[in-house]
């Protein structure tokens, strides 16, 4: 069981923390590898914490992880691998073991006419420019995908409306999907990936943010209850380019999103936001990687999740690597989880690896806890019934991410979706 450290807030004490009162900063103590140890930095977790790397952890540095376009290069999964240890492999429905020959979810793109949309074959030269599989499921999709959709925002074009990519699953045969999104030089756009329907799919999304471009990717996972989705979303960020990536996972039986941002030239900026709401039995996993490989880039990561119901499981692993060359880096990553009921579990592992001291700043934080009683008391003391007060608090907690989207229609839709989630139980 996840150990919840709830520091009982003092009655009415002023709260200056930038996160929910009563939460603890000691995220590492939440990892099951640390079970049995009361000290937050004791035991195996001290080893997995990546300042040193250590015994029993195959990747002593995030930089050393195997990458390959070939499935055969990845050993069959056992569930013991560091990057699969939280994932129930049985529920992957063959994404890691079968030939992904099912029909891929349909892709329909809508957006300004200047934006080009192409269906291309595997040998298109743009494929493989931003991404290379980092795990077996992603490599399996790479080996099996039939064709890809390439969306290009032309250079210097500023899209005033969002580009929506509707990805609709209609079959539960294990399938492979491939998307490429190119934001050319000095372009500006918001691209929304709407994942809906029923599917068992491994998806690779390559995101190229060319010099001076500003791209927002919003990946919404609003699958049906039976869907299984693994999505590797790898971004390459050019000089002075900006990427904002917002991941929202609400629906699906098992959803595992692995976004990464790689800086390839100085002056780049990446913001990675995530929101997830896990219900009973749902497994929502997110593992991100920010690779500071060049000087003077900035990154900021904030993922927030709410969990409710028996065996609702959320996993967040945030890897941030500041390489030796990446002087002047400024980075911060944080994960917050709100456990709304008994029987839910959140695993949260922030990993920060720093190979140079010549940086602007680097930080990481993680907190998992229950709703703060003082928040509830305050709202209820104003006549607001408990269920409404709970909803207000959860909505407020998640709102910080929704506010980042800045597309009113989607913000509204997600607010409604969160309301529906809350209505499922007595929260």
């Amino acid at each position, binding site marked *: 069981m996840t150990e919840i450290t709830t520091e009982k807030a003092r*009655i*009415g*004490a*002023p*709260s200056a923390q930038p996160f*929910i*009162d009563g939460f603890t900063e000691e995220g590492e103590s939440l990892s099951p590898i640390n079970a049995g140890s009361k000290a937050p930095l004791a035991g195996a977790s001290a080893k997995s914490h990546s300042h040193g790397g250590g015994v029993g952890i195959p990747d002593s540095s995030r930089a050393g992880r195997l990458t390959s376009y070939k499935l055969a290069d990845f050993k069959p999964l056992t569930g013991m691998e560091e990057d699969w240890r939280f994932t129930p492999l049985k529920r992957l429905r063959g994404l890691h073991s079968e030939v992904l020959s099912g029909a891929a979810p349909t892709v329909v793109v809508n957006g300004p006419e200047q934006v080009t949309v192409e269906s291309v074959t595997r040998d298109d030269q743009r494929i493989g420019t931003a991404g290379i599989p980092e795990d077996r499921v992603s490599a399996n999709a790479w080996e099996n995908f039939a064709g890809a959709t390439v969306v290009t925002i032309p250079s210097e074009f500023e899209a005033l409306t969002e580009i929506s990519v509707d990805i609709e699953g209609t079959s539960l045969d294990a399938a492979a999907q491939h998307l490429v999104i190119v934001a050319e030089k000095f372009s500006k756009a918001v691209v929304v990936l709407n994942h809906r329907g029923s599917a068992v799919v491994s998806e690779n999304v390559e995101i190229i943010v060319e010099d001076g471009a500003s791209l927002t990717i919003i990946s919404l996972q609003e699958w049906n209850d039976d869907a299984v989705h693994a999505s590797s979303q790898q971004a390459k960020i050019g000089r002075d380019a900006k990427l904002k990536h917002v991941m929202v996972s609400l629906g699906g039986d098992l959803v595992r999103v692995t976004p990464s941002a790689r800086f390839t030239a100085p002056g780049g900026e990446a913001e990675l936001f995530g929101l997830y709401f896990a219900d009973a039995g749902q497994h929502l996993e997110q593992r991100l990687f920010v690779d500071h490989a060049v000087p003077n880039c900035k990154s900021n990561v904030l993922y927030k999740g709410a969990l409710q119901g028996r065996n609702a499981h959320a996993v967040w692993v945030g890897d941030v690597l500041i390489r030796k060359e990446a002087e002047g880096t400024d980075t911060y990553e944080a994960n917050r989880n709100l456990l709304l009921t008994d029987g839910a579990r959140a695993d949260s592992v922030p990993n920060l690896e720093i190979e140079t001291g010549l940086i602007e700043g680097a930080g990481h934080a993680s907190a998992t806890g229950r709703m*703060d*009683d*003082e*928040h509830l*008391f*305050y*709202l*209820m*003391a*104003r*006549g*607001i*019934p*408990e269920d*409404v*007060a709970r909803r*207000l*608090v959860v*909505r*407020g*907690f*998640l*709102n*910080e991410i929704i506010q980042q989207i800045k597309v009113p229609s989607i913000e509204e839709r997600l607010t409604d979706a969160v309301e529906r989630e809350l209505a499922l139980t007595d929260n």
Partner: protein
Amino acid sequence: MSTLEIKDLHVSIETEQGTKEILKGVSLTIRTGETHAIMGPNGSGKSTLASTIAGHPRYNVTSGSITLDGENVLEMSVDERARAGVFLAMQYPVEVPGVSMTNFLRTAKTAIDGEAPKLRTWTKDVKAAMEQLRIDADFAQRNVNEGFSGGEKKRVEILQLELFKPRFAVLDETDSGLDVDALKVVSEGVNRAHADGNMGTLLITHYTRILRYIKPDFVHVFVDGQVVEEGGPELADRLEEEGYDRYAKGAGTAAAPAAAQA
């Protein structure tokens, strides 16, 4: 006219050292239109009384009663008490991230009145009340108490008092941490809410300073979980001069039993 009646109230809390009794038999009767000041040294149980009336789960009532026009307040949940007309202006209002003041005020008003306020008049009322309390208009867009200074939080408590129009207001050290200007603004707000005679006020304070701006009808002195002396406004003047020392030393007439225990 309504009556809030507290009878022989005993309240304890759970601490690491075990159960600790904080209120040791408190009786008070407050009618609408009246202002009662409760004064006492730190740790005398003043704030416990305030939180217990509001229904904070930390405080266990072991015996005694609180009734509002004969209805048992102790059986009501926190939100039911508020809807019955009891308002607690908190000593340390908490920040609620992600919930805007506008949304919060409207949700609370709707809950208290049983129907949503008319949008046009409500917006106007909120704006006017904010202006009178000298709260910047942009506070409405901000999250509840988030990043507010101590003084701003207190003003926002009084803003709610004015908007929600409770029958009984408990002000838990609303004056502490306020400079003189803010104290005047806050006191004016309380006096406005009090003006039409439909609100009873329980003003809890450590200092007599606020009593220059809010005139109490009755003053109760709290020491060690009990009322040790009661009187009119003149009692406050005496406290101003003499402080609480005489109660602790057992010099006060009614204070003798309490002081002997201490």
